[in-house]
């Protein structure tokens, strides 16, 4: 990628890390504000925040962030101090790492790994470790119960997530995310290549499976047993206050942003617009297109979150093992058959 000015390798890396570090809290705030505050409010025939920041309360989450930062972060007496302190960092790091591979434009990707998808899913399961550390270290019965539930759930839903993605990889023929985006851009549906071949058509089951599994990874309703406020008050986050709780909040919505971006890239064609191929334009339009697709996917996820009650622990596991995984396998079978036929 030639830049107008000749810039050393180090500076490019610095710019990339700063961009990724900025995206996570910004993405969390955008998702949190539009969906958790405004959309949920209107779905419940309320208005949501109106006063902070004047127009429709846009400053609400920034204000929350500042509030959390200046709050005293308390450590319970019998808690295991070091693990208690590191746990939120582990949860948030897994979100940062996922963004390294998500492309926002032909050149706008931190590192275009050939095994991008494999890497993204491997890294996203790091959060389980962070959650277990948080639950164990807070020395609180509710937190322990929440953490154990979270551990069981996240592991149970890794598998359907992988199976959903395998279908896409089979159709795209490559594991690198750029490759998948190109495959969708210049693919054709039975010859007609008006809008390329976004894998959502071929892989509608895969898309649904991915969304359900992502919902469970994020511990959102109907799978939010670990953070069930009516029983365990706040699950593994119960003892966290101040800055550390802010980490968990950013982690939660950052991961939601990451999974939405992953789903957009894998199923809706990522940053690509069907017939715009020259790199200049794509680099500019890419992020905007990706953002709209992310908002679309996030809308679906949060819409489900605000409507459904929550499944009980054993029903949750039953859905994963007995229902999602067989469907995932069948989906790969169909993807393979389609691949061979066309």
């Amino acid at each position, binding site marked *: 990628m030639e830049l107008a000015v000749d810039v050393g390798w180090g500076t490019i890396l610095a710019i990339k890390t700063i961009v990724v570090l900025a995206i996570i809290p910004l993405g969390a705030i955008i998702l949190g504000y539009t969906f958790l505050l405004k*959309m949920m409010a*209107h*779905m419940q*025939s*309320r*208005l949501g925040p*109106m006063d902070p920041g004047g127009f429709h309360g846009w400053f609400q989450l920034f204000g929350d962030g500042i509030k959390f930062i200046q709050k005293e972060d308390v450590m319970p007496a019998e808690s295991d101090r070091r693990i208690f302190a590191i746990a939120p960092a582990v949860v948030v790091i897994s979100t940062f790492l996922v963004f390294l591979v998500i492309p926002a434009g032909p050149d706008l990707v931190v590192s275009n790994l050939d095994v991008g998808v494999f890497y993204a899913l491997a890294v996203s399961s790091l959060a389980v470790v962070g959650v277990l550390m948080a639950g164990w270290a807070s020395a609180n019965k509710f937190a322990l119960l929440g953490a154990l539930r979270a551990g069981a759930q996240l592991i149970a839903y890794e598998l359907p997530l992988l199976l959903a993605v395998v279908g896409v990889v089979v159709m795209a023929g490559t594991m690198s995310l750029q490759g998948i985006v190109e495959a969708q851009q210049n693919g054709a549906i039975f010859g007609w290549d008006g809008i390329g071949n976004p894998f959502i058509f071929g892989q509608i089951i895969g898309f649904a499976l991915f969304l359900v599994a992502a919902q469970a990874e994020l511990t959102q309703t109907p799978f939010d047993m670990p953070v069930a406020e009516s029983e365990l008050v706040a699950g593994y986050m119960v003892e966290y206050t101040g800055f550390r709780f802010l980490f968990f909040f950013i982690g939660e919505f950052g991961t939601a942003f990451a999974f939405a971006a992953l789903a957009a890239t894998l199923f809706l064609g990522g940053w690509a617009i069907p017939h715009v191929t020259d790199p200049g334009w794509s680099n500019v339009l890419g992020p905007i297109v990706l953002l709209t697709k992310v908002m679309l996917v996030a809308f679906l996820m949060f819409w489900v979150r605000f*409507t*459904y009650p929550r499944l009980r622990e054993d029903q949750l596991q039953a859905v994963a093992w007995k229902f999602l995984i067989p469907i995932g396998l069948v989906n790969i079978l169909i993807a393979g058959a389609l691949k061979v036929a066309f």
Partner: protein
Amino acid sequence: MPKLPKPKAPGLIGGLGVTFKTMLKGSVTVQYPHEREDPPTRARGVIALKEENCTVCMLCARQCPDWCIYIEGHKEKRPPRREGGRERTVSLLDRFDIDYALCMYCGICVEVCPFDALFWSPEYEYSEAKIADLLHDKEKLGEWMETVPEPEPLEVGAESGKK
């Protein structure tokens, strides 16, 4: 068992439909400091005292279940109404406090007052920083008198009998 519902999408999709429809419909929030929802005329917001009617008969203080009305009065001589008549002794209020921290707005005092000195007013914005300020004295209760609305007409078929 329950009646067969008309064929509809399975519950899960139906639920999504409900939330989506509500999202499009407007919200019902009244943004309090800017917009204000005025209570019905009969709302029991605060008790107003008409001092001239009060004859310090202590009935309200005695009937109040929460013991939150404190009254002190004294007696005075008044010139007789018709000349040559006996001098009148009239009892006047020195102190008439209602402690709204204790009051449970049951309305027994307003009802039991034989001289209609106490009225209900729908006013509700008198919250205080200190709980001690909730003890409204005679003047404050007098101020509430203007906010007392006219009793509204009764429903058709109601016998507008005793008051």
